[in-house]
């Protein structure tokens, strides 16, 4: 039976949804923003192939942010005739009109890329006149188009992982505001990956394998590149690329350091995990938590040298509980390999 109360609740819901739709229609216009991804012309041919147009350049990072095991295809488009400006320690200066394009997808089978993939979302960072703006696009099931969508979503995904195991899980597409969760410096939205230490590596371009920074310089995309002394983070997942410590620091830098740095949103915690931190307490060593709540997991220190299982850092990486998990977004799954690396690092500390 439907009670009067249920009916009035339903009625309230109907009104509410209608209001919601009305609000959606009243979006403030953003300069140059397109409703469909295809309208930008970043890619040629079949959109889902992500074949870059001539002025769209793919790139990779030495160590990249874990996002729920999604793979990413990244591209940069600079405005014609303009260049990025090299900085040693921070994000390159980029001209107004620069667009960074990041596509998130899952291979059907991580062991065999030829079995196809499913693209879930494409996030653009656009350098507009008054600063960077984040424009999120969500792909349709047919994989023919992605549509501008600010509200985010929670999707069911399934794939076969690198170990051959079938995984079915939730994937939360962040809302537009959550972009700032990572991409913020004080109150400004900024890119993360376009920095020397992340980009300083080889990439196999259509015309051969080259160091990305040198390639950018040759193509007239980058000025001010010094001939030596370029920083490079280790590749967290390649044992040969650096010591356990340097790989763990590279991992924390890209996964945590955008928030846990002096100008980041997590500076409230006093825990600073970016590459530039050298103070042991700020890095978490024997540091007591501040506002961790149940994130402390009944442990006393962020990092307890020699004791990964008594370190809050490991505890918070090793859970999917949204009230505890770190990082706060893109973590509907535990990054087992990342946890293992950080665990090794802490275990080896004296």
């Amino acid at each position, binding site marked *: *039976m*439907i009670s009067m109360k249920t009916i009035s*609740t*339903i009625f*309230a*819901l*109907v*009104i*509410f*949804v209608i*209001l*919601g739709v009305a*609000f*959606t229609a009243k*979006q*403030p216009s953003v300069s140059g923003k397109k409703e469909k991804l295809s309208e930008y012309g970043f890619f040629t041919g079949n959109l889902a192939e992500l074949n870059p147009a001539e002025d769209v350049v793919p790139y990779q990072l030495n160590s990249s942010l874990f996002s729920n095991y999604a793979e990413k295809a990244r591209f940069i488009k600079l405005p014609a005739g303009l260049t990025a400006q090299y900085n040693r320690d921070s994000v390159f200066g980029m001209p107004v009109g620069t667009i960074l394009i990041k596509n998130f997808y899952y291979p059907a089978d991580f062991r065999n890329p030829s079995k196809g993939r499913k693209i879930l979302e494409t996030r653009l960072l656009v350098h507009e006149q008054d600063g960077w703006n984040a424009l999120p696009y969500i792909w349709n099931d047919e994989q023919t188009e992605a549509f501008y969508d*600010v*509200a*985010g*979503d*929670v999707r069911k995904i399934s794939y076969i992982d690198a170990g051959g195991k079938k995984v079915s899980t939730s994937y*939360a597409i*962040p*809302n*537009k*505001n*959550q972009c*700032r969760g990572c991409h*913020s410096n*004080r*109150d400004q939205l900024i890119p993360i990956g376009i920095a020397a230490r992340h980009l300083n590596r080889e990439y196999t371009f259509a015309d051969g394998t080259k160091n990305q920074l040198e390639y950018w310089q040759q193509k007239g995309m980058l000025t001010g590149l010094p001939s030596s002394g370029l920083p490079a983070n280790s590749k967290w997942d390649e044992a040969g690329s650096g010591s356990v410590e340097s790989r763990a620091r590279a991992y924390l830098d890209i996964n945590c350091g955008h928030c846990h740095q*002096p100008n980041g*949103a997590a500076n*409230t915690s*006093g825990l600073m995990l970016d590459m530039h931190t050298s103070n*042991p*307490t*700020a890095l978490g060593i*024997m*540091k*007591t*938590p*501040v*506002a*961790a*709540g*149940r*994130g*402390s*997991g*009944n*442990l006393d*220190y962020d990092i307890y040298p020699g004791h990964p299982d008594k370190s*809050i850092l490991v505890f918070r990486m090793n859970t999917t509980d*949204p*009230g*505890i998990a770190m990082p*706060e*977004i893109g973590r*509907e799954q535990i990054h087992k390999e990342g946890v293992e690396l950080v665990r090794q690092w802490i275990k080896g500390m004296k």
Partner: protein
Amino acid sequence: MKRLLSTICVLALAFNASAQKDIQRSLQTKFIDAEHNSVIELPEGTFQLTASLSLDGKKGIVIRGKGMDRTILNFASQVTGAEGIKITNGADITIEGLTVQDTKGDGIKTQLVDGITFRNVKAEWTRGANEKNGGYGLYPVQCSRVIIDSCAARGASDAGIYVGQSKNIIVKNSKATENVAGIEIENSMYAEVFDNEVTNNTGGILIFDLPDLVVKKGGYTKVYRNHVHHNNHVNFAPKGNIVGKVPQGTGIIVLATNNVDIFQNRIINNITTGTAIVSYYITEKPIADSTYYPYPGNIYIYDNVYERERKRATMKGRMGKMYRFKLKFGKDVPHIIFDGIIDEKQAAANRICIRNNKDASFANIDAANKFKNISRDMKPYDCGKDVADRKVAGE
């Protein structure tokens, strides 16, 4: 007819499920598309949300529900986000007339907002006190011009109402129950906490300055006309957190903060301590922050009413052990304690003044010297003229 009705029932249920998902999206879309200086109205009802709602970079927004008990946002089935509502990088934001329930992390967090008002807002965990509840109910951090008025917080595993690293703060007419800390003001300047009821928490009101933070120094805090009673809840904070050290049965604690006035409060039946003035050293945690000042100073406690039943302090935890084996007050537990850990270089400047409190008893527990010279004499702290001057100056 019966069949028709059951068809409607099924349709209604199906509609309800998809409507709930639409609510997440339509609310979040409203939050993102809101123009500066506009009102976001939330309808009456209980709504299930699966992700945090976030408002960023906005000025002059009012988020308005139909009333604290009429618009209820429930996050029990939340899969993503570390709080219920998150408001960042804004100015002049008001949240009013709603309840946020059962979030996985904090209830409502606001960060870097200049001008944030919570009015008739409740943050609660409906199962009551539980260590699996989120840390903070209402949680402004790095904000200025903070007003928390006629709000309620219940069940937080850290602090129900927590203001951190902020300045120019008012917390009034609010109620905090069944939290580890009822109201906590941490590393914050110019806070006034008054006319609140704080009961059945582990500790009622906490005024803390902690090390290793970006905003180092709090102080110039006034705590007055509050009813701080029966804060005797067992401590259910996850270990590691500083509030995990707060003994069950605490009314008000001032930890390492300077320039604090506590007056005209009713501090009743908190079994372990009515008011404690302590340094950070009492926590027994290491201090690596060389810029941190771990001692309390210029603390004025006057015109309060103290009452307690004749019973023992808690025996739980490290502090319980201290009461039991070192302090040995039995049932004659002092209302006000001072840990006696002082900065020798600043001893005169770091005043502790206690005057004209009704029925107050006192102890300096001499924690600096292994509790050797515990003194119950309040006289040395009766700096009458100072208190009178503060009243005249309206400080």
